[in-house]
């Protein structure tokens, strides 16, 4: 009895190579054409502290990280303790503990996962020592064991290992090979125990294994972004790292600025000069960018800002995910400052949303925020290159006619005015963040202000018409309809599938476009369901509040499931909530 979907977690200390182990399994699985989601977690130390790596591998598509672990590898129970409460173990799981450590008591194990666990003491350190003379290759031993357990092809695992240690001496490589081999043999010796964890799959074309942050960075380059300025901040820094490497290769300019004020300023400057520009940050950095997002809005300069959300407020929980920068993104600026806001719900979506953000920014000369979060930004997930396609739109150059008596902020039916760039002889203008007339000159008359406010907001209608993107899951008519956004979509999608498989009728609506909101599409969805359930990770239910600003949510049949971030949403939580809604016990009351 093999499996089609298995979740493995490895726990150890800094030197244990936990992350390398997870990475190698994930890569080989991706290369086999399997579907993978890989996440990591660390204690507060930068190096040497506890770390864990979770890899879910499945033969068909998966949408969220496995919430319950089927195979748990523990190099150190001390480290495990620090993650307790964050790792839950599936019924019937296999647990491989370092043999040289005191095994957990039956009671402790019971707390971990009930009584139908298979617990094995594995001499990781000893096998490593025998093979290499040192205990440092425990992770390679474990790779052998897990490779055998999952039934991944041995040669691929070996090749991946060889690549990883490619630069080491031959003697080291050989020793590593022996460690791997001893792991394989251990697995072979437990064949019966492991049987139920063996992956049942057909190898397919190899897949890419990317993080959401990488996908977003690729999206930017794909969209033609040739200027990036940013300041490092967890959990967005991988975008900066990636573009630090690739932006010069793409012929663009990359600048690590002194702070976030400078980052957004440089992007606005570059875009004013005609080059597609982006920055990436997280909550505290977004807070610092707020003033100049307003400038971009007022001066109508296209710019893309990716906010990879983490736990807030203030410094908050920098390594945990949350969906609580929504209201700031929508309403954070002083004055009435239009901007568009998109969300990414998975790794692939990070690519698409970023490209779309550029399309909107450039076409409508407006700042566009892309809301990602730690959960999608830092997890790695399999996607195929074929999915990484997206139409690219460029900024429209002013026509010859428009350049005669050129007015930068001409009041047009769509609100979009001709935008020249330096170098255009007839297109010279001086802009500013003051209220200005059509010619761009400061003008504080009431009528100008009213007219220009209207012009700037008028863009929202064509944006909505063109970019009302959203996704739906489940049947076209349903008993329960879930409305969620961003990274909540994955667990919701799995819960929806599970519910329908159980014979219930549940659907979901996930807008990619948050503002302007695909209102009509949603209203149709709301009509098609009996009960509406809003799901989000924000203590004050920011999404629910936002929706209320412009939607009349169906009275008496709207329910809210919200909680703080800090641990990822699971399909099981959503399923529970679906049951509550069906039993009419869900809550609507919202704090804050």
């Amino acid at each position, binding site marked *: 009895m093999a499996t089609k979907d298995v979740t493995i977690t490895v726990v150890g200390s800094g030197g244990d190579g936990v992350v390398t182990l997870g990475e190698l399994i994930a890569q080989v699985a991706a290369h086999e054409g399997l579907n993978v989601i890989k996440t990591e977690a660390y204690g507060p130390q930068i190096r040497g502290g506890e770390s864990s790596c979770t890899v879910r591998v499945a033969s068909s598509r998966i949408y969220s990280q496995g919430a319950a672990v089927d195979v748990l590898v523990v190099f150190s129970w001390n480290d495990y303790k620090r993650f307790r409460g964050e790792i839950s173990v599936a019924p019937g799981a296999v647990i491989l503990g370092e043999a040289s450590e005191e095994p957990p008591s039956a009671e402790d194990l019971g707390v971990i996962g009930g009584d139908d666990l298979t617990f094995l003491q594995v001499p990781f350190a000893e096998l490593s020592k025998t093979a290499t003379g040192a205990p440092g290759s425990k992770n390679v031993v474990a790779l052998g064991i897990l490779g055998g357990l999952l039934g991944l092809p041995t040669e691929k695992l070996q090749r991946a290992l060889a690549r990883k240690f490619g630069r080491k001496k031959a003697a080291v490589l050989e020793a590593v090979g022996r460690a791997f081999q001893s792991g394989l043999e251990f697995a072979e010796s437990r064949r019966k125990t492991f049987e139920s964890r063996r992956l049942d799959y057909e190898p397919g074309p190899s897949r890419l294994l990317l993080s959401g942050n990488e996908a977003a960075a690729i999206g930017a380059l794909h969209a033609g972004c040739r200027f990036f*300025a940013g300041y490092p901040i967890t959990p967005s820094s991988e975008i900066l790292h990636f573009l630090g490497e690739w932006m010069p290769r793409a012929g663009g300019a990359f600048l690590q600025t002194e702070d976030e004020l400078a980052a957004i300023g440089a*992007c606005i400057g570059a875009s004013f000069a005609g080059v597609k520009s982006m920055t990436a940050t997280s909550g505290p950095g977004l807070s610092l960018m707020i003033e100049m997002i307003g400038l971009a809005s007022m001066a109508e300069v296209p710019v893309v800002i990716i906010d990879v959300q983490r736990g807030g407020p203030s410094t908050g929980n920098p390594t945990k995910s949350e969906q609580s920068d929504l209201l700031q993104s929508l309403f954070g600026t002083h004055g009435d400052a239009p901007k568009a806001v998109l969300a990414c719900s998975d790794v692939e979506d990070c690519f698409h949303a970023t490209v779309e953000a550029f399309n909107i920014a450039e076409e409508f000369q407006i700042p566009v925020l892309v809301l990602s979060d730690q959960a999608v930004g830092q997890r790695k997930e399999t996607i195929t290159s074929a999915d990484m396609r997206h139409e690219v739109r460029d900024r429209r150059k002013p026509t010859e006619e428009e350049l005669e008596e050129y007015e930068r902020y001409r009041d047009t039916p769509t609100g979009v005015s001709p935008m020249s760039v330096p170098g255009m002889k007839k297109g010279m203008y001086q802009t500013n963040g003051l209220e200005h007339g059509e010619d761009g000159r400061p003008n504080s008359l009431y009528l100008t202000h009213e007219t220009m406010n209207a012009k700037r907001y008028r863009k929202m209608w064509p944006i909505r018409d063109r970019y009302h993107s959203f996704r739906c899951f489940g049947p076209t008519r349903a008993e329960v309809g879930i409305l969620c956004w961003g990274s909540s979509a994955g667990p919701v999608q799995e819960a929806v599938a599970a519910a329908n498989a159980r014979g219930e009728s549940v659907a979901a609506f996930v807008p990619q476009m948050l503002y302007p909101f695909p209102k009509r599409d949603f209203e149709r969805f709301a009509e098609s369901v009996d009960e509406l359930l809003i799901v989000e990770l924000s203590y004050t239910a920011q999404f629910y509040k936002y929706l209320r600003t412009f939607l009349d949510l169906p009275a008496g049949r709207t329910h809210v499931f919200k909680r703080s971030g800090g641990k990822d949403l699971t399909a099981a939580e959503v399923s529970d909530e679906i049951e509550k809604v069906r039993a009419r016990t869900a809550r609507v009351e919202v704090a804050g």
Partner: protein
Amino acid sequence: MSTTMGELPAFQPADYKSDLKPVWCAGCGDFGALASLHRAMAKLQLEPWNTVVISGIGCSSRLPGYVSTFGFNGVHGRALTLASGVKLARPELTVVAVGGDGDGIAIGGNHFLHAARRNLDVAYFMMDNEVYGLTKGQAAPTTPSGDKTKSTLWGNPEAAVDPCELAISFGATWVARGFSGDPKMLVDLMVAAIEHPGFAFLNVMSPCVTWRGDEQFKMLKAKLAFLPPTHDRTDRTAAFRYTRETDVLTTGVLYEVRQPSLVERLEEVRKKAHEVGGLATTADILEQLAPAI
């Protein structure tokens, strides 16, 4: 960039004048700075459409509106951040940043530091009136200690800094001081600043008649001095000798060295990156990221 002798230059100072009338107070030093900029641009024969003048907020920061080039009057303190973006995105453009002492040293001090440190290829003209003009006369970081202003009714309890000293310690590769009351010299300084390959900082003493009274102009004029011809511009320590002076106002180029500019350094980076493999496309990236086993 200059024209052949005898020929009439194509661009006259007036060509750089926009048709917006400055709303500065009569007698404001910024008029002198503006006129000098128009003339410096003509001397350099800058193509207006390939020139960008960028500022923050303040009386002095209104200047870009009065120059017929591309212009961006941004938000308070952030002129140099905008300028960084413009210059790095389009290195072929001439970028001039302007603004006040408050804009550049109070709220914008950090960007001044880092633009200088990076040797960003812009000329930065700070119109220094030792006060916040636009917001009606509060003390600036350049206001002498003890002075009474709108915000320091009991006398300014803070010490002033010298913008030129800061610029040198920040890493600027060209640092000079001028005076809006000495336009001849100012034009020359502006020309040299714009021609300098790297970060060129010019502190333009520019009196505020409204909040510092008519005396400010007179006092500055009285203190005016010129660098001795023996001054070695490449000597940082020597340059520091002319900063924080109180009884004289030494004008001229205090410091000048040639170091790779940020644009040159980023070009270097791109070259290295291309050696690894041509200009990258999305397909190249994806190919490289595929798990190669």
